Each structure stands twice: as structure tokens, then as C-alpha cells.
């Protein structure tokens, strides 16, 4: 019996590793995702919402993946850009200032504004590395949240902004979860497309080189200042985009929506998925954002289980579910290569 299962999984692996099989699989998943909102089942609205929300986190994850996964800059304050995007849209398209600018105009503006904030954050932290960077970015995230809480005249403070306009597309008001589901799906595809192309270009190579060895990267001519800022800007741009979509979808936002747990969630999902890997971001989002909703049936044990699973997942797959191609080779390689001087090997091989 066991053998049979093994041979089946073997077979599945085989099919998935052939290009046709892989595309067929991706196609099937995509088709399923496309038709979910059209199907008729009891918890449809709930699942549309949950998957839509997961999509939003895929967008955020793709953005942070540029910063953390590719450029190797540990950013714990990613929520700041999400907040900036969300507030930009909420302020410009609601009754708050009675300005009702179209979503499609504000969206790029909100993303650019967040991108600009990314550069502003980037400048002071250029010389910092690793955990120093982590704490400063964490602080930046908190500062933004405190500012939106306390700049009451601008943001209505803790009372939040309500009655945020819905986007319109060719006269259709995008209001329901299904509308946003498809809209987010489109943005997810765009974000995957863009980050993938960046990853494989000269820009992505420079980021990864910087992650691997900053000094050496600079010595081969990579302007590390510029590429760090670029990574922050691209990541923040995508985060801002996600924020604007979020505020349009939810229709109301409050400073509490932008607490540090958002940053931590996004960071966790890219690491669980496999740092630097785009399919990893997708899988990681399902694991981290959908999973807690599946755990709803455990009611108040939900977070306990979630914390436990986080530990278990990390121990079972320290490299994440789908390590990026580069990283996968690396992990395989660890067994081959002689332990370098920086390795910390305390016990025998394996």
C-alpha cells in the first residue's frame, strides 16, 4: 500500500516536472481559481473573500520579496507602504475631504507615493545591515502607524476613514467581493509578471549579487546605493498598490489595520514559501493567509495551532516550500560543497 502511494507521488512528481505537465497543472489551478466565484456552493462568498484576501497578500508578498528575497534587505516595516497606499486612496476618494477622484487615477499615484516613501526610508538605512536594518524598518512601520493615528486633522486619527468610494470600471461599480476577486487576480498576474522579469534581468542579478556580497557587488560596478533604493522603491510601490486596493475593497480603514502583524505576516509568508521565489510567495500566502481561515473551525485554538504550525513548517522545510531555483541548487549544494570557513557545522554531515 505504502509502495503504491509512493509510486503515485513519484508519478505526480514526474508529470509536474515535465514542461507540459507543469503548464497543464498551472492551467488547471488557474482555471479553478477563475471559476470559483461563479460556482454555486454554500460558503462561496466566504471563500471568494478569503482567496481574494490571499491574493492581496500575494501582491504584498511579491513586493516584499523584492526587498528581502532578492536584495537581501531585512524589512520588518513593510506595512508602512501598505498604509500609505491605503490612506492615499481613502483620503482622495471619500467624503473626508469630499474629493472623489477615480480609483484608476489614484491607484498609480498611491503606489508612487508609497514608492517615494520607500526611497525616503531607504536613504537613512543605506549603511545598515541585517538586524540593524530590521529594527529600523520596524520602527519606520510603527512611526507611520502612529502618524496616521495622531495626525487627526489629516487622517481623522483613530476614528479612521469611512465611506471610501468604490472603483468604477466602464460604468460598473466594483463593489462585491467577486469584483475585487477578479481585480486582485489581474493585479496578482501583473505583479508576478513584472517581478519575474525584473528578477531575471540585469536589475535582478544586481540585487541578488548585492544580497550575496555587497562589497564585491559594488566592486564589479553595481551602484549599491541606487539598487538598494530601487529595491525599496519597487517593493514599496507594490505595497502601496496593495494598500489602495485594500482600502477600496474594505470601504473603511483604521490605523489599527496597519499594525506590525501585517509586516510579520508578509515576511513569514515569503520565508515559508521560499525566499526569493515567486511561486513560493503564492504558496506561502495560501499557507499563511488562507490557513488561519481554515483553522477557524478550531475557534479559539486557532492562533495556538497557527503558531505551532509555523514552527513545524519551518523545521520540516527550513528552505521554504518552493525555494527559488537559485536557492534550491544552493541547498542541494550544501551537501556537496566542502564546509566553508563560515559554515557552522557542529555535528556530522547531512
Amino acid at each position, binding site marked *: 500500500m505504502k509502495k503504491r502511494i509512493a509510486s503515485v507521488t513519484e508519478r505526480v512528481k514526474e508529470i509536474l516536472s515535465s514542461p507540459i505537465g507543469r503548464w497543464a497543472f498551472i492551467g488547471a489551478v488557474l482555471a479553478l481559481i477563475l471559476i470559483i466565484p461563479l460556482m454555486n456552493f454554500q460558503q462561496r462568498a466566504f471563500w471568494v473573500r478569503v482567496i481574494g484576501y490571499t491574493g492581496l497578500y500575494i501582491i504584498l508578498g511579491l513586493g516584499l520579496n523584492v526587498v528581502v528575497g532578492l536584495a537581501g534587505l531585512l524589512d520588518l516595516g513593510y506595512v508602512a507602504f501598505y498604509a500609505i497606499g491605503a490612506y492615499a486612496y481613502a483620503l482622495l476618494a471619500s467624503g473626508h475631504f469630499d474629493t472623489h477622484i477615480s480609483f484608476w487615477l489614484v491607484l498609480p499615484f498611491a503606489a508612487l507615493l508609497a514608492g517615494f516613501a520607500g526611497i525616503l526610508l531607504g536613504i537613512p538605512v543605506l549603511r545598515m545591515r541585517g538586524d540593524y536594518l530590521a529594527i529600523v524598518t520596524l520602527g519606520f512601520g510603527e512611526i507611520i502607524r502612529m502618524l496616521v493615528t495622531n495626525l487627526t486633522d489629516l487622517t481623522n486619527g483613530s476614528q479612521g476613514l469611512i465611506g471610501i468610494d468604490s472603483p468604477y470600471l466602464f460604468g460598473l461599480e466594483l463593489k462585491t467581493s467577486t469584483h475585487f476577486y477578479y481585480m486582485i487576480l489581474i493585479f496578482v498576474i501583473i505583479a508576478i509578471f513584472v517581478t519575474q522579469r*525584473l528578477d531575471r*534581468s*540585469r536589475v535582478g542579478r544586481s540585487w541578488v549579487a548585492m544580497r550575496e*556580497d555587497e562589497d564585491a557587488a*559594488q566592486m*564589479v560596478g*553595481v551602484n549599491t546605493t541606487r539598487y538598494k533604493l530601487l529595491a525599496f522603491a519597487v517593493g514599496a510601490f507594490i505595497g502601496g498598490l496593495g494598500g489602495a486596493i485594500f482600502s477600496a475593497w474594505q470601504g473603511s480603514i483604521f490605523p489599527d489595520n496597519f499594525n506590525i502583524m501585517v509586516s510579520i505576516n508578509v515576511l513569514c509568508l515569503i520565508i515559508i514559501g521560499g525566499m526569493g521565489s515567486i511561486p513560493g510567495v503564492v504558496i506561502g500566502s495560501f499557507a499563511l493567509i488562507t490557513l488561519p481561515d481554515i483553522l477557524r473551525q478550531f475557534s479559539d485554538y486557532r492562533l495556538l495551532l497557527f503558531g505551532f504550525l509555523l514552527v513545524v513548517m519551518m523545521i520540516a522545510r527550513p528552505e521554504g516550500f518552493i525555494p527559488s531555483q537559485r536557492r534550491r541548487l*544552493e541547498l542541494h549544494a550544501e551537501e556537496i560543497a566542502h564546509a566553508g570557513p563560515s559554515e557552522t557545522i557542529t555535528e556530522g554531515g547531512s
Partner: protein
Amino acid sequence: MTILSSNNVTKRFGGLVAVDQFDLDLRELTIHSIIGPNGAGKTTFFNCVTGFYAPEEGDIYFNGTSLKGLQPDRIAHLGIARTYQNIRLFANMSTIENILVGQHPRLKASMVDAILHTPRYHKEEEEALEEANRLVQFVGLVGLGDHLARNLPYGAQRRLEIARALASKPKLMLLDEPTAGMNPHESAEMMRFIQNLRDELEITILLIEHDMRVVMGISEIITVLDYGVKIAEGPPEEIQRNPRVIEAYLGRGAASGLGQNST
């Protein structure tokens, strides 16, 4: 003609003077070595040239341009490349990718080109890949293009580091102990390779090396540093006989490396 000149360069770390009023004239298309005991300031000088350290005093000119205040990446753009004593490759990138990153200063495609895959981007990437493959061949890493740098054998890593440096088409290359950890046979090969770089690619070479056989074998001129101070400079034969050098560096049996040929 002078390609690199260092005038009165001084670099301090706290109380320690690592490089002390150092003058150096590097003539174009020579192979020039810097030797000296550990901690004599050789690598520190390399770091001053490549912009990682800003010297407190003095100035360094490359082809007449002052390097003062320039960031390492700007200096790389000017045409200086280097390798490291303890190899510093992009360990988790493939051989080809390492070389592609090395070509960075010569590529122009922007982020927008990359996202939109403009014709310009395609053309440039294709050419870059071609060039990378050519370099793989040149340094003798054929068949290892897809391997991650960290998986390469030691000697191949050394060669890849040089290939990466070559990718920017530099005019001057700084090599920091390129034969460290090699056996005499491999060292001899590396010596020939370095000579090739100069002869075929017309690159000026500045070398830090401990292996006296290599140093004496290929250098046209040798500078000896001790505690940051230049104590001697001249052609190999002269240096070998210099009593100050023997006392501070080579030792009585000086020859440890060289003399062995006669054993």
C-alpha cells in the same frame, strides 16, 4: 606611461597607521607586485585604490583622474577590477550569472526595458550572454556555466573570480594572492594565465602575493611594504638581495620558496 599613481597615501585605523605615506607609480602594461609581511598594509592599499577606504592623506590617480571620494562602483566603471585573497564570489549564483553581474558597468538596459522586454533589452542580454560564454571558455570553465559558484572546486572559483573581473573589460586588475592555496603545479599555471592577461588582453596587473616563486617569476617590478611603509622597490633580482627585505620579510633562508629549485 603611468596608469596608476599613489601620492603620499596614508590610511589609519584608530591609532594604527596601516599605510604610511605610500607612493607608487604603476606603469601601463607591467606586472607589478606588492609583497610584505602580514599586516603590512598591502590589502589596505588595495582597498584604498578600489574606494572601500578613504585615505586620510594623499591621493590616488588613475589615468590622470583623481579617485578621491569616488565610490567603488564608480571606480569599477573607470576600469579597475579586483579579486580577493579569500575568494568572494556570489556564491548562490551560477558561473554565468557571476560573469553577467561582472558585465554590469557595460550594460545599459533600464528597469523599464527589463519589464517590457524591449528590443534593446533582448539584444543586450543576448550579447552579454555570448560574452559570458566566451569568458567561461577563456578561463577554462567550459561545462561549469550552470553550476553555482559555491559548488565549484577551489581552483575553478579562483578562475571564475578573475573571469568576473574581466567581464567589465578593465584596464587595471588588482589580484590579491591569486595563487593562495594552490600547489606548485597550479601556481605555475596561474602565472602563465596572469601573463596572458597582460599580453593578450593588455591589462595592467597589480599583484599581492606570498609565494615568492610566483612573485619573482612574473613581476617586472616589486614593492615591499613593512608596517605600512615602503622599504624597497625594484626588479626581482634587486629585491631578493636587499638586506632590509631579507630581514623583515624573506628571512635568512630566503629563499624558502625560491631556493628550493636548487634542492
